[in-house]
């Protein structure tokens, strides 16, 4: 073992004295280094031996004299910068620069200022470059000191230290006492040059960039904290400040001088310019900040004014200035992701335009004010022309409204697509405004239904499938905005009913398409009843065929037999009151169940069908709606043909007209019947009677009867005679009854619809409340309100007062009770 230890002793030899611990004469060594440093600074380094310098520095550090060396080097640099470099630069502070400094504004021409500024910038750049190169070399030589001394002693590297010296000696030292420092001058020059650049003068961006690099490479302290770059600390703030002032002023001037479009283009250009400037002249890191300044000054603070300018958004929309709108959008999007100003402006415009459309529609529909009250009495002969005109006017107003709204929508969709980059938030806002416009118009539901009705009856004739699809889509589009969908349903049902029963629809296919579209859009429950109507129609057809076959199978080939086709309608599904409208309301006291008297040959057929139907479905009660029917009859007029020969015409008329005409069959020629007599013998409601008589006795083309006296109005006491001398060139004659045209409701009618609607809403609300409470058992008042509203929102927007009322009524009926000791008002469900 001792041999081992002995070997160890002999083996490790102490390090060479030359390296480790020889005495180094600090002063002489330093003298060598200092001389070399001076050479380096005067750019004579190529003859120096790196190895020798390194070795000298290395030895000093190894001898633990790193601190002295460090201090000496720093001192040397300080002197060098202070004595040589600073002088060279301050010499260049020529009058143009200094005069500016003294007075604070430019007395010299900009060109002069620019040139002397550039000279200064160039000198500073060169000084900085030299300093960096030299310090790079010094750092190389002093590598060992940096690694060992500086790391161990927590000193900044000599490079960082000397950069700090440059900052203090060159930039931070006043040129003379009482004069600003070079840093301030530099700052002013750069800002000046940038201002020149903004004013359109050519400057040298590379020089500025080089100086900016310098500021970026220097720090407030030797710690070199990233946030404390001289650039950030001393320059950027000022730059942003002056820029803000400049743009504020420029923005205000432009607002006064130019229109919105020009302003937008200018702002855009400025933003791009600043972006370029940051890249070419300043630092990229400033880009977002200056961007923000420009945006603040040129856009954010001015946007409201800009939008509201005479040549603002309103003007652009009115004149379809899509490009400028797009600019506005672009600018707004920069400063506000929600684009609230633009949104507000656009909403305002839509609302305004929408209100105009609404008002126009109201104005159009109520143009001759007294006519409105009479509108629903369109059957009166007294004013058939004005009444018909009235109907047309109303319908036209409705169609126009729908078309206008659609056009409005199309227009703003176009703007949205082309100018607003299909922005999501704007789309939502625009849609909301559209909805507001549509819902603000209280006849919206009716008009939309009417629009569909009109198209179903006439519009889609001669149209291709694609066009039809488009029309339907448009209708659905509007429907989507509609809040009170239940009202729409009511109207639609009514209109659909008429179309179906009176065979007015152009194509059942299209009708069904429409229904299925609605189904997709509004849900199954919405179309349930509409579909049931179609089903009834199909069933009725089968029923009619069945009955006809049944009659044939009886084998009674009675030529005189009346052929019957029939529609059996489920009373709950069909809005039949629409047809009884005038009747029931006029003669409410008559209990509505006036059964007309059919002549025996018709009565027999009716009885036959009832028998047949009851055989098939027992327990069902058929109510005959004779006012809805029509009849084909053959009528022979003695002098109708040429040369006074009799001629037979096929006449299509309403059931009521048939009944009236049949009365004259039994009369001798030339005999007359009074109005009262007809009324008594047929039991036709007076309204309908008058209307039908008007068609038969007044309308020139179908004047089968002659009225005594010859006046337009049918009055009690009038007498009617068969018109033997009726002539017509057509074989088939259709007797029009003034009732079929769909039209806008009158005020009273509307009130009724509303009342009915309110009732049905009431039920819906109650049902919803009960559904919710049954599930929850106990619920606070507000949550109940919210849930009810959300449940019903698919159908309509329930009125809060109504909900409250319904809750009260449910409490009265003991479906619910109040919870007495609950902290918030709450209800409990009583099973």
């Amino acid at each position, binding site marked *: 073992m001792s041999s081992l230890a002995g070997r*160890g002793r002999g083996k*490790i030899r102490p390090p060479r004295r030359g390296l480790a611990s020889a005495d180094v004469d600090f002063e002489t060594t330093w003298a060598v280094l200092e001389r070399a440093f001076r050479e380096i600074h005067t750019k004579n380094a190529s003859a120096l031996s790196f190895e020798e310098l390194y070795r000298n520095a290395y030895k000093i550090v190894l001898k633990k004299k790193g601190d002295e060396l460090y201090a000496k080097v720093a001192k040397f640099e300080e002197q060098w910068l202070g004595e040589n470099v600073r002088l060279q630069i301050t010499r260049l502070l020529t009058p143009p620069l200094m005069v500016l400094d003294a007075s604070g504004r430019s007395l010299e021409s900009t060109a002069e200022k620019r040139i002397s500024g550039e000279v200064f910038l160039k000198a500073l750049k060169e000084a900085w470059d030299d300093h960096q190169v030299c310090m790079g070399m010094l750092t190389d030589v002093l590598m060992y000191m940096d690694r060992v001394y500086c790391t161990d002693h927590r000193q900044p590297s000599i490079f960082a230290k000397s950069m700090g010296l440059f900052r203090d000696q060159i930039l931070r030292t006043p040129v003379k006492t009482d004069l600003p420092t070079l840093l301030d001058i530099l700052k002013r020059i750069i800002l000046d040059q940038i201002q020149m650049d903004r004013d359109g003068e050519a400057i040298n961006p590379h020089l500025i960039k080089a100086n900016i690099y310098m500021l970026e490479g220097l720090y407030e302290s030797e710690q070199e904290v990233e946030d404390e770059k001289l650039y950030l600390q001393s320059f950027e703030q000022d730059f942003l400040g002056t820029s803000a002032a400049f743009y504020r002023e420029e923005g205000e001037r432009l607002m006064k001088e130019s229109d919105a479009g020009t302003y937008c283009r200018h702002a855009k250009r400025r933003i791009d310019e600043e972006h370029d400037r940051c890249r070419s002249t300043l630092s990229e890191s400033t880009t977002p900040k200056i961007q923000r300044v420009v945006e603040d000054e040129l856009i954010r603070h001015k946007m409201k004014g800009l939008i509201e300018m005479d040549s603002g958004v309103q003007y652009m929309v009115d004149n379809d200035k899509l490009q400028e709108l797009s600019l506005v959008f672009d600018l707004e999007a920069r400063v506000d992701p929600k684009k609230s100003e633009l949104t507000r402006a656009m909403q305002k415009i839509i609302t305004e335009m929408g209100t105009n459309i609404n008002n126009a529609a109201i104005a159009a529909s109520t143009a001759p004010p007294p006519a409105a009250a009479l509108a629903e009495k369109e059957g009166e002969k007294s004013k058939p022309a004005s009444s018909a005109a009235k109907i047309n006017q109303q319908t036209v107003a409705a169609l126009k409204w729908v078309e206008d709204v659609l056009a409005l929508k199309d227009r703003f969709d176009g703007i949205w697509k082309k100018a607003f980059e299909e922005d999501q938030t704007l789309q939502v806002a625009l849609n909301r405004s559209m909805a507001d416009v549509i819902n603000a118009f209280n006849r919206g539901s009716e008009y939309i239904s009417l629009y569909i009705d009109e198209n179903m009856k006439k519009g889609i004739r001669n149209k291709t499938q694609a066009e039809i699809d488009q029309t339907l889509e448009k209708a659905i589009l509007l429907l989507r905005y509609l809040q009170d969908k239940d009202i729409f349903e009511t109207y639609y049902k009514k209109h659909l009913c008429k179309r179906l029963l009176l065979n007015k629809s152009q194509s059942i296919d299209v009708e069904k398409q429409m229904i299925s579209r609605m189904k997709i859009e509004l849900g199954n429950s919405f179309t349930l009843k509409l579909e049931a109507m179609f089903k009834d129609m199909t069933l009725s057809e089968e029923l009619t065929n069945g009955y006809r076959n049944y009659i044939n199978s009886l084998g009674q080939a009675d030529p005189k037999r009346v052929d019957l086709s029939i529609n059996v309608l489920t009373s709950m599904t069909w809005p039949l009151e629409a047809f009884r409208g005038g009747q029931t309301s006029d003669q409410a006291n008559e209990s509505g169940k006036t059964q007309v008297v059919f002549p025996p040959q018709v009565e027999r057929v009716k009885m036959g069908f009832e028998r047949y139907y009851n055989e098939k479905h027992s327990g069902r009660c058929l109510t005959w709606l004779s006012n809805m029917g029509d009849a084909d009859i053959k009528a022979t007029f003695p002098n109708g043909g040429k040369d006074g020969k009799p001629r037979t015409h096929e006449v299509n008329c309403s059931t009521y007209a048939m009944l009236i005409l049949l009365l004259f069959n039994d009369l001798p020629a030339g005999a007359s019947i009074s109005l009262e007599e007809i009324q008594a013998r047929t039991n036709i409601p007076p309204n309908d009677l008058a209307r039908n008589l008007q068609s038969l006795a007044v309308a020139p083309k179908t004047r089968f009867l002659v009225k005594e006296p010859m006046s337009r109005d049918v009055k009690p006491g009038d007498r009617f005679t068969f018109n033997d001398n009726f002539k017509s060139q057509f074989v088939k004659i259709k007797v029009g009854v003034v009732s079929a045209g769909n039209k806008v409701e009158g005020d009273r009618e509307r009130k009724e619809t509303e009342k009915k609607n309110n009732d049905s809403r009431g039920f819906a609300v109650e049902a919803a409340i009960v559904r919710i409470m049954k599930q929850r058992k106990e619920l606070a008042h507000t949550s109940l309100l919210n849930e009810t509203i959300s449940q019903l929102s698919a159908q309509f927007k329930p009125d809060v007062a109504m909900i409250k009322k319904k809750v009260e009524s449910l409490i009265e009926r003991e479906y619910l009770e109040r919870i007495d000791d609950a902290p918030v008002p709450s209800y409990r469900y009583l099973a």
Partner: protein
Amino acid sequence: MSSHEEESPSATAAEKRTTTLKHNIEKALAQEKQDIQAGRLKDENPLDKSHDFYLMCDAARRGDLRLAQEQITKGVNINARDEYDYTPLILASLCGHFELVQMLLEQGAKCERDTFQGERCLYNALNDRIRNLLLSYDYSKSTDPLQPLAGHITSLLTRDSPQTADITLHTSDASFQLHKFVLSARSPYFRNKLREKPETKSWKLAPKIPTGSFETCLRYLYFDEPEISPQESEEAEKAVLEGVGTLSRQLEVPQVFETILNPGDRRQARQRRQDDVEKGRDQMETWFRENVLQKQFEVDADKTNEVHWKRDNSSFADVLLLADINPEDEDADDDTTSSDHPTTTIPIGPSAPSHRRHRKTLFPAHRAMLLRSELFATMFTSPFREGQISSSPDTSDSTSPPLQIIPVDCSPAVLAVVLTFLYTENASFPLPIALDVLHAADMLFVEKLKQRAALLISTLGNGAAGSIVESPAQSAADQPHDWIYDVVRSGWDCRVHRLEEFGARYIAYRLESYVDDEEFKELVRESAARIKARQETDTVEIVDDIRYYLSERFRLRFEDSGLGEMMDEEEGSGSEKEEGEGEGEDDEGYAGSPGLAPDLEAHAGAEGVIRTLDGEVAGDEFAQDALNYQILLGKIDGLLDELTLDA
């Protein structure tokens, strides 16, 4: 019962998984064995029955750092296995020798996951500390020890600053800036060509062979992995491939073509890559020995200026390195020399007085390789004289200035070591010059060499820890070794913490002989001064370290005997006393222990007494150790008092 039923299927599933896993492993192992027998795969852990390897394994079992390092230096395969399939790494981790495991890993012992031996090693690790260490050296993450060298040479191809290339090869559509010494070292073809015409500066290559082929081959010569860069078309690729085939025959580097033709799986590829790099390194080394080391020459100190080497020398050197021949190096084993020159008085460099004629040694060298030292890299890129490379390969003026001579402040032997490392990654050198190498590496910023020197010192310099404790008699009898002070100071100078630790440990285990030494006091004072300058802590680092190792030294004894608790008690009382700072109190503390009345003043003598008692009264041994411990601690406190230092 139900729970049991539930468990059983999952248990069988687990079993099944294990069995499949086991099958897979067995299959993989069998496959591997086949591959090895067939020569497709190299055995990473070949069987080694040599005596050296036996010693190595023994050292691994016992944790003998020094013995292990000696075997490694002798060239034992660190990854070999013994007849029981144990590798030194497995043994060391199994026996829980953390430091030894670390040392083995540092020197290239492999512990690769997903191999049989690697998993075995991890599985066998004694504790988590070692396991984590093994995992942190996971082969797939750690780099091949030769990778830095290979990477450097490869990077020469693309490195443009500083300019180091000295020959340009032109193909039909491209040119390559290359280094003659690399070409010559790596390819017999180039070697012959260049030997004939060392001054060649540019060379036209056969125009028929595609540039891509040249690139592949040249990259291979520069230690890059041979692969063909993707070409636009298949034909182009084929042409390149054929070109590579031709070239690899012509340049006599058949491996390129073989590798490209038959890449093999990941493991094979890696092994071949390792072989390639190793082979390349050997080529470099051979060339380096012939053309650099053997070309070194001596001149008189005052005649160095007359040395004029042309650029077109046969070694292709572009720089000459100059080392002082220090007279004392020549008879380093002579103890009298060092006593003649006390540590503080020998000056350096040219001003050094020499009894003999002052001579210097010059080494031809290549900047391209010197760049591996950060100092040289900086030097050659700097605008100083050294950075001005006289001629680019294209200028063929014959009047180019002679090669620059750059002095390196170390002995020729050390410079040779440094150069060897830079050229070959090979860092084996005799212990005596280790400190010099350490300093040179520090000065030249060759971090890895520095670490190797430190490793060498701290392993070989140490008597194994165990052995000292086993024979306290001998260690106490030894005189203090001055060199340990140099080691500690060098550790400080060169910022190698490992050496300071090593020194503290070394001293702690022999504290009896150091504690009263004057120079030890000096060392403690220096350590304290260092701390003052840095103001990090209030302790004297070396004293803390010594205390720590001291406790380790004695604790080992107690724990071995299962009497750790007793030790703890003693230690507790000891530390209380330490706080009390008085030796007198220590006295009282030990008065309580029966049968212990050593004379503290004459502790050396007392130890002697105790030692004689040792043999006779075995029961007292531990108590006596504890006493020794306290005595030594007391000594240190006294020393600190004397130096008026707080600790």
